[in-house]
């Protein structure tokens, strides 16, 4: 993190932090454009510019007023076309930031993501750069049902050529979005819909959190909890409760799943000898299985207990309240897993 001596810091919501990063990067580099469904909002209607939606969740509010329709582009509901267009634009001089409202909708654009965006640089022998950022909402807890609640970042992490950033909080979001937009590779940037209103101090000045650098949210000596996105917040909560029981947890937030900071994760595991990985994504082939396997291979001799994974059951996300609450891993389930790992010999 680079901050000047004159740093002024204000509490900001996640939403405001994303908005601030977008404005900052658009001011900094005029090749940065923003596109997506209703990112301006109100095309063809009677709204005044100031009242324009700025996206259904207000993430891009005010951009159209400052940067105009040439750089803030509303799209028809046609993800395949605009995700592909962003890819083509990135190959030819622009730095598009695309909003796919809910990550679930990337499915209709998946060829453009999987076979075009991810592969062009490699297939063309490195001739192309693809400075494109795809922002999307993810996660359960919103009573939004099976098609609006998925995580899906493991699917993207699986694909060579894509980077995947999952900021846990407003401070993280502002610094990581700046890094994503300045990156010359495609970056998927995940925003948890349950954290959009979360507030924390965020510097007004520019700062960049490099992609691929994990952070230790809390130092501890007994056990390592690696947790991603919203789950990192839950892990920190669980760690607080466990501290009262005398269990000293180290919480590591990888921040990005691609690139993955395996060094930081392994260093922590070597220190504590125990590992819990928490991932809100479906349990098979997710980040928990990936990181547990990494530890098993690289730190086997340092492990004093089997790595444990905390994820939802292998089902689609249910709609009803009690079912969804039971589905999403929370601090209690994380704490239970920690206690179980602590009794392993």
């Amino acid at each position: 993190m680079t901050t000047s001596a004159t740093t002024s810091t204000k509490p900001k919501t996640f939403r405001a932090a994303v908005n601030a990063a977008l404005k900052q990067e658009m001011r900094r580099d005029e090749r940065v454009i923003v596109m997506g469904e209703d990112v301006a909002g109100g095309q063809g209607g009677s709204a005044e510019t100031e009242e324009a939606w700025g996206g259904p969740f207000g993430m891009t509010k005010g951009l159209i007023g400052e940067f105009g329709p040439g750089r803030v582009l509303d799209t028809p509901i046609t993800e395949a076309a605009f995700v592909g267009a962003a890819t083509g634009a990135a190959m030819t001089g622009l730095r598009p930031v695309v909003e796919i409202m809910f990550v679930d909708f990337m499915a209709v654009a998946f060829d453009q993501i999987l076979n075009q965006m991810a592969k062009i640089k490699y297939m063309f022998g490195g001739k192309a750069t693809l400075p494109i950022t795809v922002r999307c909402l993810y996660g359960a807890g919103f009573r939004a049902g099976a098609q609006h609640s998925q995580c899906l970042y493991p699917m993207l992490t699986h694909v060579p050529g894509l980077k995947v950033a999952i900021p846990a909080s407003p401070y993280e979001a502002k610094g990581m979005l700046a890094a994503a937009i300045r990156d010359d590779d495609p970056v998927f940037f995940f925003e948890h819909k349950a954290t959009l209103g979360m507030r924390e101090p965020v510097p007004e000045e520019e700062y960049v959190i490099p992609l691929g650098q994990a952070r230790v949210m809390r130092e501890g000596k007994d056990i390592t909890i690696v947790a991603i996105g919203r789950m990192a917040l839950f892990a920190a909560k669980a760690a607080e409760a466990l501290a009262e029981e005398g269990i000293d947890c180290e919480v590591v937030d990888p921040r990005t799943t691609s690139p993955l900071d395996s060094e930081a994760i392994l260093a922590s595991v070597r220190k504590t000898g125990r590992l819990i990985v928490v991932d809100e994504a479906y349990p098979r082939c997710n980040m928990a299985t990936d990181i547990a396997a990494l530890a098993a291979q690289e730190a086997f001799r340092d492990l004093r207990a089997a790595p444990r994974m905390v994820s939802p059951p292998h089902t689609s996300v249910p709609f009803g309240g009690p079912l969804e609450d039971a589905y999403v891993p929370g601090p209690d389930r994380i704490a239970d897993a920690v206690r179980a790992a602590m009794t392993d010999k």
Partner: protein
Amino acid sequence: MQLSRDDLLDAYRVMKTMREFDERLHVEFATGEIPGFVHLYCGEEASGAGICAHLDDRDHIASNHRGHGHCIAKGCDVPGMMAEIYGKETGLCGGKGGSMHIADLEKGMMGANGIVGAGTPLVCGAALSAKTLGTGGVAVAFTGDGGSNQGAVYESMNLAGVWTLPAIFVFENNGYGEASASSWATAGGSIAKRAEGFGIPFVTVDGADYFAVREAAGEAVARARAGEGPSVIECEMRRFYGHFEGDPQTYRTEDELAEVRERRDPIPRFTARVREAGLLEEDDFAAVDAEVAELIERAVAEAKAAKVPAVETLADHVYTSY
């Protein structure tokens, strides 16, 4: 078009049920008791009712996120729908789907849908089943003006043309996709006309005119049942409420909203026509109104009283559990 007294009473009952169902949701949603988000069909009733008037249990429909009206028109159990929207175990999908995923395959209702445009390929499949199995059935996809821009929609129209499927693509043009006007989002200016390129017969009708919709749908269904392939119908209308409940609708003026309620409400337009023609009287409407009011009241009371799904059912209906 000569409609019997029973036809007219049915039409009125269906539209009135749709209206009261969603008007009640508008009120109940504001109390915070309903989980998730709901998209209301108020103002668009003549479309779902006029199309589905020609359908029976052989036939299938696929709906979108604004699906309550389509479900009602296709005969879904109204208390079961309400319970689903409340996320209760007595809901049509056991409380696992919610407003955007109500389905009742026994009634030929292949589901509301959270993915815009996704119903059109499914409808090609239902039409293929009908054709292959010789059921005489037809399949209808309801898609919005915004949804009409998805690639899957045009791939489906082409497929239906190539395979001569008994499929009908209904585009409910309510003026907006979220906050964007359809006039802005539709290059070329007409959704229906795009069908021309696929050689599919198409028509644009006043979607607030029950009789116009019903007539257009009659021709399309007859063509499909006769093995003559797909049709496209674009219904032009306006929604009364926002895109979702809670949408402040900054993109529409008060004048527009007032005009929509006054001139584009399909229900008074229907009743006025029927009354003028001397086909139904005030008492007939009043009797249906009472019946519908009782049904909605019961649906809400039952939904509120019903149990939430047991947590043990969380991993049901998945091929395996880990």
